[in-house]
């Protein structure tokens, strides 16, 4: 396999991992005002992701770094072209990250309420905007022959991309609800489980529509298989959630998100950012790539360190595998 293909796959894997992992912690953040009826309940919700959200976010930093290193043209055009959506995502991630750490640092209700809002909007905005951004990558954007983005903000807000935003929103909400049902005890667990079923049913409709639209824009045999797999996984998750098989439901939403992201990348390949204007502007895995020497070095680093990272991050999830409930939260 060519190194550019290897790195296309690796970037795809990193973003897939990012959406599976931070997907549920975005979901938890958005469900905070819905499922957390008082401060102790909200603390239960936040503490389910407490030990892991930061590590989850590093998947994004690694994906961005890998994109920069392996496909500098892709990174440069995409990040300068999707300027305002990325700015909003950054502001959201700042507010939300600080909020997790600071909300419990003072006792006043008004203080906590402010940070709860930061967690909610800080999770909601990226959950929608990542879908908008990735749908636009697949659909293609106006690029000049020298690969500069020549569209405006409104070019990014087309119906297909907006449906993409609703899809990631629904997927992350469902994923978050299923995760909470799996990680909590008592009343919260019950409510999260019931909510997961409702959210999942709505999301399945939206996601299937989005995947079908995606395949009508560009497609490949692999993309069709992955899209069907994503839809089946989501339906499986829904069925499991109905009978409160929480582990299976979570596996289902994780696989569904993974396969949905994989569908986008499979349909995109070998392009990385198609141009809707000048065909010469289209960025591909080969014309956007770094030199073979850089890719070779990066491949060695990835081969050595990725298994180590997966091992200790997986171990963290094992350490914090226990469910938590209101009883685990100190009174003050």
């Amino acid at each position, binding site marked *: 396999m060519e190194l550019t293909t290897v790195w296309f796959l690796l970037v795809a894997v990193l973003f897939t991992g990012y959406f599976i992992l931070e997907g549920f912690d975005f979901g938890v953040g958005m469900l905070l005002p819905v499922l957390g009826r008082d401060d102790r309940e909200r603390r239960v919700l936040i*503490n389910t992701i*407490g*030990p*892991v*959200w*930061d*590590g989850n*976010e*590093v998947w*994004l*930093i*690694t994906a*961005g*770094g890998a*994109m*920069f*290193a*392996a496909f*500098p*043209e892709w*990174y*440069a*055009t*995409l*990040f*300068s*072209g999707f*300027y305002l959506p*990325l*700015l909003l995502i*950054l*502001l959201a*991630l*700042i*507010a939300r*990250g*600080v909020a*997790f*750490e*600071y909300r*419990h*640092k*003072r006792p006043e209700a008004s203080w906590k309420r402010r940070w709860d809002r930061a967690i909610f909007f800080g999770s909601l905005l990226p959950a929608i905007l990542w879908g908008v951004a990735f749908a636009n990558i697949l659909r293609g954007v106006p690029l000049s022959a020298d690969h500069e983005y020549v569209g405006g903000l409104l070019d990014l807000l087309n119906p297909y991309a907006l449906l993409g935003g609703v899809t990631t929103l629904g997927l992350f909400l469902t994923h978050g609800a299923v995760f909470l049902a799996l990680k909590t005890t008592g009343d919260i667990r019950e409510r999260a489980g019931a909510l997961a079923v409702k959210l999942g049913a709505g999301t399945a409709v939206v996601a299937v529509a989005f995947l079908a639209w995606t395949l009508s824009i560009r497609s490949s045999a692999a993309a069709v298989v992955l899209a069907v797999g994503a839809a089946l996984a989501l339906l499986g998750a829904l069925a499991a959630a109905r009978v409160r098989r929480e582990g299976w439901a979570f596996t289902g939403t994780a696989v569904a998100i993974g396969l949905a992201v994989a569908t986008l990348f499979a349909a995109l390949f070998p392009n990385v950012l198609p141009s809707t204007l000048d065909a010469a502007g289209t960025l591909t895995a080969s014309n956007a790539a*770094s*030199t073979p*020497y*850089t890719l070779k*070095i*990066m491949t060695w*680093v990835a081969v050595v*360190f990725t298994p180590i990272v997966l091992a*200790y*991050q997986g171990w*963290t999830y094992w*350490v*914090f595998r226990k469910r938590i409930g209101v*009883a*685990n*939260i*100190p009174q003050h």
Partner: protein
Amino acid sequence: MHSWGFQVDALDVARWQFGVTTVYHFLFVPLTIGLSVLVAILQTMWHRTGNPRYLKLTKFYGKLFLINFAMGVVTGIVQEFQFGMNWSDYSRFVGDIFGAPLAIEALVAFFLESTFIGLWIFGWDRLPKRLHLAAIWAAAIGTNLSAYFILAANSFMQNPVGYRINPATGRAELTDFFAVLTNKVALITFPHTLSGAFLVAGSLIVAVGLWHLIRNRGSADTDAYRFASKFGSWVVLISSAMVLLTGDIQGKIMTEVQPMKMAAAEGLYTTESPASFSVLTVGSLDGSREVFALKIPYLLSFLGTGDPHGTVQGINDLQAKYAAQYGAGSYTPIIPVTYWSFRFMIALGLAAAAIALLVLWTQRKGRTPRSRWLLRAGLVMPLLPLLANSFGWIFTEMGRQPWIVFGEMLTRNGVSRSVSLTEVLTSFTAFTLIYATLAVVEFKLLVRYAKAGVPDVTPQPVADDTDDAERPLAFAY
């Protein structure tokens, strides 16, 4: 349109945004780098001795560390995105080289740091003690390692090595990755930056410890605070010695690879051999000659070359040389900025070391300091090396101007062409506002938790019938 007044373009705003967000990010980084290791050391001391005062200090400074850590993390993401958003032509030009250390930093260092910080925060009383101690060390190693990769990337901008320019594309291509990682600028900037970071972290430990020692006389935890103020002072003294030593070597390397930066640091307009060190120089308004100067003979030659009679090139000669080499244009940084930031960096760092000496002196042979002046000096102490770090970065980045990659790409050619003035103004305004707000919030929280003092660490009685699963979580959010 020719300007007849104040006029900004996207390039100016992009530069201001980079300056503001980077200096801001680096207010939190030194504390994270230094405190991660110092808290790990305190916890190790507790582990070794079983003395509860070390546990108290670990938890106390650990909390301050975490308040600060969150800010470092979230402002760091902006840094990685910013290259692509505002500096896309720079990213295209250097991506083949510059992207690799960034990706490796994330994969090798940030995962380690973030995962083990999570384990450490939530692992109190849950993980076996040894493993919990290992978690803070792993996080500290990750943090310090991350500094290496980002400094290797920055050093390429100061002194590009291990690359060639592809004549077909006009882009820089990596030819020797090992050369990039062992760039002599990187090898010396790394220890210089780390010692600068420990200077800040040590100062914070002194400031808080000393405040409690003087204000809360007779507190049951006096010995913990006494220990903290001395421990921090020794950290400050050792790291300031390291800062001077590494800074000296760095100066010699800079004289060799970026002579203009050295000349700009000194406001040295004409080549001198031997060159004297300027304590204070006032230049003419157009910045081309000296009006007044107070100097120490031979010192600059010695600092720059190791030889008191060595030649140090002046700004005017270098400017003429670069104009001949790279074409007409200014190759001179803004001299007042480089000159003063260089001096502030040194003076502020030395001031912190002086206060640390005073703190140790006032506690000689078991004495307890009482002076209100010492208390005040202790309180401003962490700000001094923190600002020294900022000035150091302002110096090293502004001293490289007009280059973004020295000798290869001008800063003005690196900016994103597709980003409008409105967009970059929106972004600059948004970051400045959110950063300013968070700075106030963070500072107040730090003060609040610093004032609260060391926590009580006597084990909470747990009723016998409490199920393990129902125990309250320690250090929970």
